[in-house]
Every structure is written in structure tokens, then in C-alpha cells.
């Protein structure tokens, strides 16, 4: 496990002004338990800038109507806003064609869509699904459910002590029975940026399995290029990238989307409905049954606009600068164990740690009383916890509006933990 950051790379001054950005976020302007809030739970969900809140408000105050099929002016405007947002979200992950983007409720919804709509038709008893031990429950349980229904077998890429995939086993893990490979782009529990650029071509060379990336932590952070990655599907959530709750997207290659049966049935996704059968609308609407989360989509589009104004490439640099600083400062604490890759350039803005003296829940309660919000628990990654023989870690996770002062506040509040539990 990493203790102190490798200092091989010179610290650059990133092109992002976190102090300025934080003024855009109303939720950060408050005191919690008598202290200015330091919000370090961004891997769970990020705060929302005024630009996003305003876009959602504007939608409701001016354009709100059910999209598609409506002829009246509000419906036309709502449809335009909704489809315009789809184009923005496509752009954010480098997708050339907005109609390859399916709106979902979030990453979990997107992966379940695939597990059901692709899985039930293409996976049979004895087939294999390859995951990794790093996965979030949302990229484990849908496949467990599918395996249970079909009799497929789940296999895992293991992780080493630094939370990195052990890739030597890959040739053995892939074979002609492998139907689906679903992996996280970035781990939420340890912060590892996984080497998907290396792994995806290896999988393609060995199987014709469906390749899915869980981009819940990747999309908010990395300049994603779905075509360059060469995957079939990329799932991500709005709420982890400054967007509203209840909205996310699943990008898929057109041929794959077209080869897939619908997931949910209902309004908007049909062409013709008869008494015993129905025919489907075109991609992506085939996968969008029911009244969609229109305000959510508009908000997620506005979040993309906002993040583009921040700068696609500045985000990762800034988060890694903070992590570098945090690792340096945290590693001075007595009895600390820090999880995840040693090399900062293979890390996202997540720092998971434990202290010998105090349990993560106690850490979290105490730092919260000092206005510092971190998460404690298994982070929906129980396999990772089992791998390291712990039930829980404390996790600080940074985003564009966090500063070095936030790290200092975390460290000083951890000293309070040590005072109580010392």
C-alpha cells in the first residue's frame, strides 16, 4: 500500500482556480457544526454549480412539457432542450453520434440495462462474465443476478497490494466462453485509474466478448474518448460530475445497441403497439421507456457546459495535485495506512485510509464535528475490503472546488481524532 507519494514528477501549477470555482457552488458556502464546510465526499456525489441549478430552474419555469410527440410550443422547446443535452453529454465522452447515448437514471441503471437487455439474450449456462475485484457493487450485483438467472460463471481480475489489476492472469481469464467483460475505468474505493487503454485491446484480441466500462468515476475526471478506448459501452452518472440526481447516460456502439432488445417497455419506446406484440422505436429511444427525467437531462447538459468551461484537461491535473499534497501530509500521521496506487499519476482524487487508533466511523464523526465531510465504510466495494482484510476505510475524495486548505483542514481534524483516541 502506498504511504508517501512518489516524487518523480515535478509539481505543476494546474490551470484551474479552485478558489474561484468554489464560489459557484452554493452548498459550499455554509458552516457545518460551527465550521466552514470542507466537502470531501465527492466520489459519492458532487455539489452543483449555480449554472446547473439555473438550467434546471429555467427548464421548469419556461419550457416544462412532456417531450416528443407533442406539437405545442412548450413540448417543442422541451424536446429541443432534452435532445440538445444529449448532444452535450455525447461530446463530453467523445462520442461522435448523440443517438448512441441512452439516458439512464445513472451508472447502476445503465449496467442493469445491459445485464438484462443484452445478458438475458446472449448469456447461457457455462458462459463466463469477467469482472475485477475492484468493482463497485453496481458493477457486480447486476452480473450476479444475471449469472443466477442464466447459470453463467463470474470470474475476477485480482488486485495487488496497491489496488492495481494483476494482468498476468488475463490470458487465462479470457476464453471462448467469455461473453461479457465489465470493468471500472476508475475505482471509487481506492482511486486507481485502471489501465483500460492497455487491457481493452488485449480483450478484443482474445475474445469477442461485450466490453463494458463503468465510467462512474472516470467520466467526471478523465478526458474520455469512447471510440479511442474501443469499448462497446460506457456507463456514467450525472450526479458525480456536477449534474442533478436521477440522471445518467449509457453510451453504446450503434451496432450493439441495434442488436439489443429493449430493456423496459412503455411510452416513447415503441413504434406500433398491437394486442399481442409491439415494434420498437429507433435507437436510442428504444431504450427510453416512459417519461424521461427531462429536467435532469437538461441539468446534466449544463454540467457538461460548466465542466468544459473549467477545462477538460485541468480537472485531472488539479485532483492529482491535491492528492499528491494529501498523501504527503497524511503519511505523517501515526498509524495511518493509505490504500491504492503509489504513483499519483495512476490515482484519481480519492484517498482511502485507516488509522490504527480509531475506526473509520469514529474518524468520520469526529472530523464531521470539525466541518469536514468524508465517507467511512465499505464504499460499495466489499470485495476490495475483503481483499485488504478490513471492514471499512475512511475516504476523502476531491473535486475541482477543493483546495490545499481543505487538505490542511482534513489533516488537522484527524489530529483531533488522534487526540481523542490517542
Amino acid at each position, binding site marked *: 500500500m502506498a504511504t508517501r507519494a512518489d516524487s518523480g514528477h515535478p509539481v505543476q501549477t494546474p490551470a484551474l482556480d479552485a478558489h474561484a470555482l468554489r464560489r459557484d457552488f452554493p452548498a459550499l458556502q455554509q458552516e457545518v457544526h460551527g465550521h466552514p464546510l470542507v466537502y470531501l465526499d465527492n466520489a459519492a456525489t458532487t455539489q452543483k454549480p449555480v449554472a446547473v441549478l439555473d438550467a434546471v430552474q429555467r427548464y421548469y419555469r419556461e419550457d416544462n412539457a412532456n417531450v*416528443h*410527440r*407533442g*406539437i405545442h410550443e412548450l*413540448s*417543442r422547446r422541451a424536446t429541443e432542450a432534452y435532445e440538445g443535452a444529449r448532444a452535450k453529454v455525447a461530446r463530453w465522452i467523445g462520442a461522435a453520434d448523440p443517438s448512441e447515448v441512452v439516458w439512464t437514471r445513472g451508472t447502476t441503471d445503465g449496467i442493469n440495462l445491459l445485464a438484462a437487455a443484452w445478458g438475458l439474450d446472449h448469456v447461457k449456462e457455462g458462459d463466463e462474465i469477467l469482472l475485477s475485484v475492484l468493482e463497485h457493487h453496481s458493477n457486480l450485483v447486476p452480473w450476479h443476478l444475471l449469472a443466477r438467472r442464466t447459470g453463467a460463471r463470474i470470474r475476477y481480475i485480482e488486485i495487488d497490494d496497491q489496488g492495481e489489476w494483476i494482468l498476468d492472469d488475463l490470458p487465462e481469464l479470457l476464453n471462448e466462453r467469455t461473453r461479457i467483460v465489465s470493468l471500472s475505468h476508475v475505482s471509487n474505493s481506492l482511486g486507481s485509474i485502471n489501465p483500460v487503454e492497455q487491457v481493452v485491446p488485449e480483450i478484443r484480441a482474445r475474445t469477442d466478448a461485450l466490453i463494458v466500462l463503468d465510467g462512474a468515476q472516470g467520466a467526471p475526471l478523465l478526458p474520455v474518448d469512447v471510440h479511442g478506448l474501443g469499448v462497446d459501452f460506457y456507463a456514467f452518472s450525472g450526479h458525480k460530475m456536477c449534474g442533478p440526481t436521477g440522471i445518467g447516460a449509457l453510451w453504446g456502439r450503434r451496432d450493439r445497441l441495434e442488436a439489443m432488445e429493449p430493456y423496459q417497455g412503455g411510452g416513447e419506446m*415503441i*413504434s*406500433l403497439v398491437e394486442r399481442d406484440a409491439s415494434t420498437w*422505436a429507433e435507437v436510442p429511444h428504444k431504450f427510453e421507456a416512459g417519461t424521461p427525467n427531462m429536467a435532469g437531462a437538461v441539468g446534466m447538459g449544463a454540467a457538461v457546459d460548466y465542466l468544459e468551461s473549467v477545462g477538460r484537461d485541468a480537472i485531472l491535473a488539479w485532483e492529482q495535485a491535491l492528492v499528491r499534497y494529501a498523501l504527503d501530509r497524511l503519511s505523517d500521521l501515526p498509524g495511518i495506512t493509505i490504500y491504492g496506487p503509489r504513483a499519483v499519476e495512476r490515482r484519481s482524487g480519492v484517498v482511502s485510509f485507516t488509522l490504527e487508533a480509531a475506526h473509520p466511523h469514529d474518524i468520520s464523526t469526529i472530523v464531521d464535528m470539525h466541518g469536514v465531510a468524508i465517507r467511512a465504510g465499505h464504499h460499495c466495494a466489499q470485495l476490495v475490503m475483503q481483499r485488504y482484510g478490513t471492514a471499512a476505510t475512511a475516504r476523502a475524495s476531491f473535486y475541482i472546488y477543493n483546495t490545499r486548505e481543505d487538505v490542511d483542514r482534513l489533516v488537522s481534524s484527524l489530529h483531533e481524532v488522534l487526540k481523542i483516541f490517542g
Partner: protein
Amino acid sequence: MQEPQLNSLYQQLILEHYRNPRNKGEMDDSQVEVHMRNPSCGDEIKLQLRVEHGRIADVRFTGQGCSISQAAVSMMTQLLKGKPVDDVGSMADRFTEMMHGDEEAAKDRRMGDLRALAGVSRFPVRVKCALLGFDALQEALRKLGDSSTEN
């Protein structure tokens, strides 16, 4: 943007074609038949075609839907009779341009009565209605091409 005007949409000529559609009905000796539906609104047409010596010898349609979709098909069929099949592509393109607001296209005399539909471009949700006929026509010619290549 200036407000679109209803009278630019509902030209007398459109209402006239809607009430008295040209070439409506079935023919017995069609070479190809296409059924086309606009899933978002339920408008539908069946288009039948006969081609002789590279020209459209006859065309008929049946269908139901709004004034725009039905008038547009009627106007299209009127224009097609005797036209070389090879001209259809550029006619369809021209009409699509008109639907996207191209004012040159709206004045193109080759477009016949279809020019009365220029106002539809100001009503974006209705553009699909106007395009239904040409969509069916192009599908029909594709089918015809396929079957002639097969033979």
C-alpha cells in the same frame, strides 16, 4: 425570430390537395409498394409505383394523417408522373432543403405545387409530416433497385 404565421402554413393550395388528393387510390399493376408510417404521430401512407423506360409511369397512394402529410404526398405524386427516376434524388434533396428553410429551394419552379409547403419550415415539429411522402418514395426506389439488381 419572427413569429411563424398560420396562413403561411395553411395555404389554400394545401387545403385543396388535402380535400381533393391527386392520385389517391390503388393500382393493380404496380411494381413496388411501400408502407410508411411516422411512428411519432401515426400518420401513414401506402405508395405504389410503376416505372417504364427509366421514367415514373404511374404512382398512387392511400393513407391517413394530417393535412400536411396528405397534401404533400398528393403534390408529390402529381409532380412525379413521367419524371426520370434519376431525377427523384435531387427532387427529394431540394424538398428537404425547402423544409429546412432554404428560400431558393422554395422558389424552384421544378417543385411545382410542393412550393406551397415552404411555410412548414417555420413549424419544425411538422416538417416530418411533410417528408413522409418522399421518405416512402425513396424507399420504393431502393426496393425497385434491389429487385432489378437481383434479376
